[in-house]
């Protein structure tokens, strides 16, 4: 039950270079006012996503080189998630490059995976964003007439040209791809709490599809959800880091009663506590990513621990950010709300903390009754 001696909780040079190039791109192409526009107009993020996915080649991080990917792994994907979180970037990395890609890879699909790795296509796994790993999420049936059913609150459909659909067929669980647009597929965007990760409800009525699993559909979906669950804490760390840094700068600048508000002990102690919490968030997110990368025996425990801690911590960081900024944080122009919405939405994504604590209790032999 010890920490695996192989666990590396730091960042290596390649990872720092990756971080640096992505951060520079996002600073240039994805400033807060650009992010804000996703709330008022139809998304104009395809050029940004192309730059991230294809030009920087980040869509293929989890894809082996033999399939045209970068042949990197979860540690590098986690760095991408950190930076995307820090910028509240409205790109479908989690939904396409993690959820859909890992599901297809695990199922043994190759053609779509190759194109995903190059950033030529974008895919979405048709499950509710709030689905925890370990659940078979399908409300879709597959038969001779095609795919039929309804899936709500799906992330990442706006740029997707391929839907990856989990369906129940006559012989059990199946995984299908549907090329978009297609007859019998209706995708209805719905206003989301966090518009940087837009959601849609999908209705399938006899949609034609390609079955891509070989009897391993359940494992493909399970693996995709666990990978995403182990990587989302890194995004939450990125969100929390932005909140901490923005708040720190603000309390140093903002003056009331003739002094910086950050000189009041009530504020200083909150900042110290927040710094501690964000530091722990980073350590747990890194441990989860590192365990996933090495396929460590502790990987599921690490993901559960990170999910339980980091979701709440990012929300707390965003809430402290709003409170310690005061009135300006309530305005549409100031970006604090982008992070509050992202943090709150991330907390619910892939299942809530209590669901992970419940699973964790089974893994570490602390039964509920």
């Amino acid at each position: 039950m010890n920490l695996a001696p192989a666990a590396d909780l730091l960042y290596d040079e390649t990872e720092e270079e990756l971080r640096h190039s992505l951060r520079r791109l996002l600073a240039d192409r994805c400033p807060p006012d650009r992010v804000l526009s996703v709330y008022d107009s139809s998304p104009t993020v395809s050029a940004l996503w192309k730059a991230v996915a294809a030009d920087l080649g980040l869509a293929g991080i989890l894809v082996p080189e033999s399939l045209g990917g970068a042949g990197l792994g979860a540690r590098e994907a986690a760095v991408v998630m950190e930076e995307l979180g820090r910028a509240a970037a409205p790109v479908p990395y989690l939904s396409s490059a993690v959820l859909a890609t890992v599901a297809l890879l695990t199922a043994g699909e190759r053609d779509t995976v190759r194109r995903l790795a190059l950033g030529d296509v974008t895919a979405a796994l048709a499950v509710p964003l709030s689905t925890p790993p370990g659940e078979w999420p399908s409300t879709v049936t597959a038969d001779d007439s095609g795919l039929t059913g309804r899936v709500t609150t799906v992330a990442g459909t706006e740029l997707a040209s391929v839907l990856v659909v989990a369906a129940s067929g006559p012989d059990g669980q199946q995984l299908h791809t549907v090329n978009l647009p297609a007859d019998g597929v209706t995708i209805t965007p719905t206003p989301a709490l966090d518009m940087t990760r837009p959601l849609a409800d999908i209705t399938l009525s006899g949609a034609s599809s390609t079955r891509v699993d070989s009897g391993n559909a359940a494992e493909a979906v399970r693996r995709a959800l666990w990978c995403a669950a182990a990587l989302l804490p890194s995004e939450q760390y990125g969100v929390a880091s932005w909140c901490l840094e923005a708040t720190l700068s603000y309390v140093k600048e903002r003056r009331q009663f003739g002094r910086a508000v950050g000189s009041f002990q009530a504020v200083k102690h909150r900042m110290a506590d927040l710094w501690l919490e964000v530091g722990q968030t980073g350590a747990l997110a890194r441990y989860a990513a590192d365990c996933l990368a090495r396929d460590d025996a502790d990987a599921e425990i690490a993901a559960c621990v990170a999910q339980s801690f980091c979701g709440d911590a990012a929300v707390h960081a965003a809430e402290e950010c709003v409170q310690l900024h005061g009135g300006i944080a309530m305005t549409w122009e100031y970006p604090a709300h982008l992070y509050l919405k992202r943090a709150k939405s991330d907390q619910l994504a892939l299942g809530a903390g209590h669901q992970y604590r419940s699973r964790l209790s089974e893994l570490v032999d602390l039964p509920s009754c």
Partner: protein
Amino acid sequence: MAATRQDTERDLTDRVRDLLRRHDPGTTEPRDFRGALFDSGLARVNYPPGLGGLGLPQGFQELVDTLLGAAGAPALLKQHNGIGLGMAAPTILAFGTEDQKRELLRPIFTNDHVYCQLFSEPEAGSDLASVATRAQRDGNDWSITGQKVWTSGAHHADMAILLARSDPGLPKHAGLTYFLVDMRSAGVEVRPLRQLTGEAEFNEVFLTDVRVPDSHRLGEIGQGWKVATTTLNNERVAIGSGAPREGGMIGKVAATWRENPQWRHPAMHDRLMRLWVDAEAIRITGERLRQQLEVGQPGPEGSGMKVLFARAAQAISGFDLELRGADGLRYDDWTMRRPDKVDYTGRGPGYRYLRAKGNSIEGGTSEILRNVIAERVLGLEAERRVDKDTAWKDLPR
């Protein structure tokens, strides 16, 4: 880098093997073994050669300790001489003269000099720089007079690190000097101080014209605050890394939960799991801090680990009592004792709950540590100090 590291690890493994061959831990007196450990440079690999170390990064110590532990070699008795090993030794190393380092470091590692800490006073707690114990020069000696408090282990200590006021005419931080005091000197009186747990782990120490040779002054006259700060920084860095999962307070509660299905309840279950996650978060954060230190990027988390540890220990030990229902009302023993060593998890749940209250007070309160983080790590404005530039003797009290 990778090759160098492996070379160093191979060299250390050889050195440990050589030490074990020359001094069989099974037949060598523990004291002699520790002396040989010091002389071979394996006691603290980051210390200079000839002074217990090899001048290597601190991270390599873990390998040495693991190899020694596997061979059944006697440990360095951290619990018995934590202050000597964790605080006095690094401070002597940083501020001692060459003579002092040669004379005073080795006995700490052999356990001949068990240390206690004479810092806090009844009127100088968080505001440590306001200490009133007087040090007056008298020929080649100093005469020390005053009262110290919260001194754990004073009743079995050989030596003490002491902070005293050498010049009341200077502002409080400037008039302090740091000494190493023989606890068997005339004029040292140790009285047990009973605590809320029923035991007397701490003492009050009364000093009346205690003679200390000037050769046992550490650092310059008036440099005491700087020297003491080094001691305290070492105290705070010492906490936290390398613990196994469920190694501390949470392990006690987890065992209780596993062994007592009759006390389980869904409402308590989610609280238990939150506490388990919190304990794990501290453990992984400590492990990352250790890795940062190992590659020479000291993470600022060090001063924060104690705040986290204290909060978790208090929450977990409180939960432990609630979990037990009627049994939580019991207490194991109120008998007045003077324990040899502190073990936060060593007694019953009532003791653990009460003792944990000290975790956020001793060695820097959590409030002071939050100030430290806010000011030194985050760069927020320092607290305003109206007494900073006034001569100590003129301060209102």
